[in-house]
Structures are given as C-alpha cells and as structure tokens.
C-alpha cells in the first residue's frame, strides 16, 4: 500500500500552481539496508498530470529523483473547481493517484 500523497492547486498570476508530494523510497539499487543487504531498485518511472481528465503533462523520471518526491508544475490559466489529477507508476508496476480541485 503506497504511503500518502498530498496535492495543492492554487490560482497564480495567469497560471495554476500545482504542488504534489508523494511517498516513495526511490531506491537506486545501490543502498544497503540495516543488515548490509542491497535494497533492490524501486522508483517511480512515469508521472501523469491531468486537468478535467485531459493529460497536460507526462514525465519519465529516474531513481535520481529524491526520495518522497515533491514536484511543482504550472498549468496555463485554470478556473476554480477544475479537477487536477496526478498519478504515478513505478518499476514494480505499483501505481497511486490523487485528485484535487483548484482552490
């Protein structure tokens, strides 16, 4: 069960500021755990940002993105109540998504 996600979408000056926080270990496969065993690679590969169901941003990211990733995006225009959805897919096939309305 992936840890929590959190997202805020606020109207900025002529754009909508979207800030999303994700719980994910983003393991590089190079880190050793407490008893010295290598922790296998485990990181988010794909991000998708949608506004009212339409994809506006697609990203491919790597294990070089910090643990518990935090992203800020900017969307053109946007109105109060527009639905923003951010989802991710990692190399284990796990996914998670969060949805919020523009404040």
């Amino acid at each position, binding site marked *: 069960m992936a*840890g*929590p*996600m*959190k997202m805020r979408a606020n109207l900025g000056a002529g754009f909508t500021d979207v800030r999303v*926080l*994700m*719980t994910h*270990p983003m393991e590089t496969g*190079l880190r050793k*755990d*407490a008893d010295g065993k290598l922790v296998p690679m485990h990181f988010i590969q794909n991000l998708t940002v949608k506004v009212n169901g339409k994809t506006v941003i697609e990203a491919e990211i790597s294990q070089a993105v*910090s*643990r*518990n*990733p*935090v992203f*800020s995006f900017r969307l053109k225009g946007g109105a109060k109540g527009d639905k923003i959805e951010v989802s991710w897919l990692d190399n284990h096939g796990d996914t998670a998504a969060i949805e919020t309305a523009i404040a």
Partner: protein
Amino acid sequence: MKLLTFAALLAFAGAALADETAKEIQRYREMVAEGSPAELFEIQGEELWKKAQGPKQVSLERCDLGEGAGVLKGAYAHLPRYFKDADRVMDLETRLVHCMVTLQGRTREQATVRVFGSADRPSELELLSAYIAGQSRGMAIEPGLSHPKEKASYELGRALYFQRVGAWDFSCASCHGEEGKRIRMQELPVLYKPQYARPVIASWPAYRVSTSQVITLQWRMNDCYRQMRTPEPTFGSETTVALIHFLTATARGERYHGPGNKR
C-alpha cells in the same frame, strides 16, 4: 560514488569567501524547505492519532497533552510542562507514551520498544510528533515554568548543558558554547542564548533530507550523547526531558514554525 569536496570552489581562502559559502548554504536550506515532503509525515501522524490500538483498542484522541483531553491546538507549543496525573514534567514524546499506556493499555515496554524509526519504517512517535507539532504552527513557544517541578526541571536542564562527562570530557557547551563556531561545515548555535535557541527549537521535530526521516528532540538528545561518548540516555528520562525543557524555555516567545527541515 566519489564524494568530492569542493576544492575548486575556494581558489583563494578568505573570510569573504566563507561568507559567500554560508550565504549559499542558507539559500540551499531555504530551497529545501520549500520543496519538503514533511507534510506527508503529518498525514500519517494524524491517521495514527485516530487509530484504535493496544489491548483496549482505543485511539489517542482522548489523550490530554496539557490543554485538555484531545486538544491539539497549541499543545506542542506549551510543552514540556508538569502533569499532575503523572506528577512529573513531560515533553511531547514522554506524554504520548503515557497515553499509550494509560489509555490504550500497552505496557511501557511495548510503547517504547521502537522509539526511533528509519526512513523505511518511521516510528509511531516520530509520525505522531510531526502531526501534533504541526498543530501548533504559528503559536508562541511557552513551556511550563511556574510549577516548582517545572523550575527544578529547567535548572537541571541547564546544569546538564554544562556538565562535562564522557570519554572525551564533552558537555553540550563544548560544541554549543561559543558564537561563530563550526564542526566541519555545520554551524553550531549557542543554544543557552535565546537569540540562537529560538530559530532552532521552533523547527523541531524536523524532516532530515539526508536520511528522509522525521527526527525528534528525544532522538537529538540521544544522538548528541552518543557523539559525546557517554552511555545511552534512557528514552523519556528526566535527563532528556530536562534538557529539552531548558532549550525550549530558552527559546520561549518564538513563533513555532515546524515541523522543519534539517540537512
């Protein structure tokens, strides 16, 4: 993964450059704070606060953190303080263990079996601390200082701060004793002086970027004594609470703005 110290940076030594370095590290800290995942730990802490646990299968929502049963607003900003029911001064983590025992029916051993967690598995107390501290954001830090046991706890904390012990003869003041001192690149705030204690205490507990963990003041006392080469302080003991009490009292009046971010 070769860690290169930035020899090229200081082509020429000099105080001016040291300022430049300090300014740049300050900018780094501000940018880290803006993009911090600390809030994710507050969310998990809230879930734990409401989750029924222990033999009595009860949540912590009736726990009295000093402002009344279940009251969270301002509770952290007014800790440590004296609690009549336990007849001793308690900080947040000690008080939470008290509620886990009295409300949830856990034994003290069960409640303190794993007080410091890891990035993969934060401890309950770390998550709860992040959530409860966040409920005091923007409020002035005012620990208890009127009850005789609160005054004694403050005095003990201050005496501990200057007590030289351990294999290397250190006290807290050995490192946190003189202005402008550094260990490696780490500035050392003089924590017995209000102006230096305020910004520090107002940012604990904190999300530590280097280990992706929430770290608490009980952990900080524990890890400082480890580096002072002493034996281990018992979690929630009077020594740890008195030190936290002294530091928090020294920082009193500051607006709490945690959970913060640390290197």
